[in-house]
């Protein structure tokens, strides 16, 4: 399907995708509740910072950081690896391959269609964060705000494309869910989801800056809560989108080779 035709189809795809998400609202709520790890980390780190700050973080900083973390997680989540692995194993991917729309586009729309519902949860949390910690930590530079919005898109794309790459590997391995679990474990540690990247030892921090995980969640959160300057924000944004480009090329290559192995099981 040409880009123009795809764009023309998008409103209907999103409308139907959203209708599906509404049908799965209870499941979605459970999923959202399962991503409350930042709130647990908030309680934990706040207790640690009770007597003295940890690095630059006092209690209010931790509250701001982990509430922002919770919000960014809601807006950048994707579950394609599990979905793709299941569809490869059961052969249901066949139904997508029969349509003149790239399956990755339909997966992307389905994953993105969940965001409005997640915003229903994220918005009150944002209000609570503002009431608790004030607006002083938020960026004052409009360019940084723009970088933040673009970084949300970049964070979602890295998450989605990493899921796509790992999910597609199921065409070789039969199932790639365990591999995704490994990715998730690394993500938890190195993305800033459980521990702000700033709190890692300097040597490790250098490595984290090169890895993709921080750009999934830590980077947008830092833009909101750390007072990142324009220059640094743009430098990190460039690094984030370099990862987007790399993942895009990787998914393209793996997908093309993998489809030759598709067995369309069942039926």
């Amino acid at each position, binding site marked *: 399907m040409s880009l123009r035709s795809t764009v023309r189809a998008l409103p209907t795809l999103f409308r139907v995708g959203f*209708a*599906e998400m509404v049908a799965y609202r209870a499941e979605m709520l459970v999923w959202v509740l399962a991503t409350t790890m930042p709130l647990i980390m908030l309680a934990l780190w706040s207790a640690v910072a009770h007597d003295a700050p940890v690095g630059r973080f006092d209690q209010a900083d931790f509250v701001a950081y982990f509430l922002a973390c919770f919000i960014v997680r809601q807006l950048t989540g994707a579950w394609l690896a599990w979905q793709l692995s299941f569809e490869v194993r059961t052969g249901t991917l066949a139904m997508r391959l029969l349509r003149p729309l790239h399956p990755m586009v339909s997966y992307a729309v389905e994953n993105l269609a969940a965001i409005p519902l997640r915003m229903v949860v994220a918005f009150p949390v944002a209000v609570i964060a503002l009431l608790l910690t004030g607006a002083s930590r938020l960026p004052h530079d409009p360019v940084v705000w723009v970088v933040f919005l673009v970084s949300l898109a970049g964070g979602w794309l890295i998450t989605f494309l990493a899921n796509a790459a790992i999910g597609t590997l199921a065409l070789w391995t039969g199932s790639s869910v365990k591999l995704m679990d490994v990715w998730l474990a690394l993500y938890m540690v190195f993305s800033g989801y459980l521990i702000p990247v700033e709190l890692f030892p300097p040597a490790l921090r250098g490595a984290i800056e090169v890895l993709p995980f921080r750009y999934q969640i830590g980077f947008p959160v830092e833009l909101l809560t750390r007072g990142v300057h324009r220059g640094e924000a743009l430098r990190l944004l460039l690094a984030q989108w370099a990862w987007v480009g790399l993942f895009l090329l990787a998914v393209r290559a793996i997908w093309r080779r993998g489809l030759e192995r598709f067995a369309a099981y069942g*039926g």
Partner: protein
Amino acid sequence: MAQTMVSVQSLRKHYTVHTRPPGLRAALGSLFRRVPTVVKAVDGISFDIARGERVGFLGPNGAGKTTTLKVLAGLLHPSSGEVRVDGHVPQRREDAFLKKITLVMGQKQQLLWDLPPSETFALNRAIYEVPEPEFRRTVAELTELLELGDLVNKPTRTLSLGERMKCELAASLIHRPQVLFLDEPTIGLDVSMQVVIRDFIKAYNERTGATLILTSHYMDDVAALCPRVVVIDKGVLSYDGALDELARRIRPEKRLVLRLETPADRATLDAIGRVVSMDAAGVTLQVPQDGVNAAVSRALATLPVHDLTVENAPLEEVMSELFAQSRAARGEVEDAA
């Protein structure tokens, strides 16, 4: 000569699968040494199908019918051979190709499970770029032909199997495909629903001139829909031609199906033909094709006949015989019976 819609030349699809016997020792052993086995799902078949033709793929389970259908629909990449559908190479999955075809699988569905079928129709309209007026016309037509009524507005999960299959067919035809690949479209349906689906498919072919390729284990589907059959067994083509000719060639004998007013004795029946079955409801006799007239005259003269019909052998028997013959020709042990 009619224009060729589907062309298959020396198609092969081989898989490598890893096998192991049951048990813990074998499971542990497979961790270190896996035994690869090449499965020849399709092993060098060739045929052409003309535009508008209705062709049935027949064969036992695992014969290679569905694999062939999936290669034709572009889902599987052939191991070797050449396949063209209306000039397209299916595995390239070009948009122009995908807009011309549809594949309906009786055991898989494209309908969105928790939404009404009308949402899947709308989704397909957008994906296949069907203009709104044409979409409305097509939906109205399909709703009438398939008697969908209010079904399209109920969540798919609440529909019965037959209702779902009707909606599945409608969703597959929103873009008015020129080639229909139907893989067991009536599987699990009751007899009356099978007839509805069958009649609809035939009407669609006659109205639109679409080419139709069907696999089904229900011989009635094939007999009602497909003047031509392609028989595949163990990945090899064992017959390609008219269904009637297949029956004549494999089982040239005819069947006299008799309903009698009073039971007849066995000796009288044996004098007319070979007794295939006999119960309170009637008798079925097998007679040579050129002896039908004589057998009918004799039956009418010697038996208390209430009703008499002359039939071909059931298609199931014909197929079973054909598979047995082709396996014997390949030197395999007869195991079909």
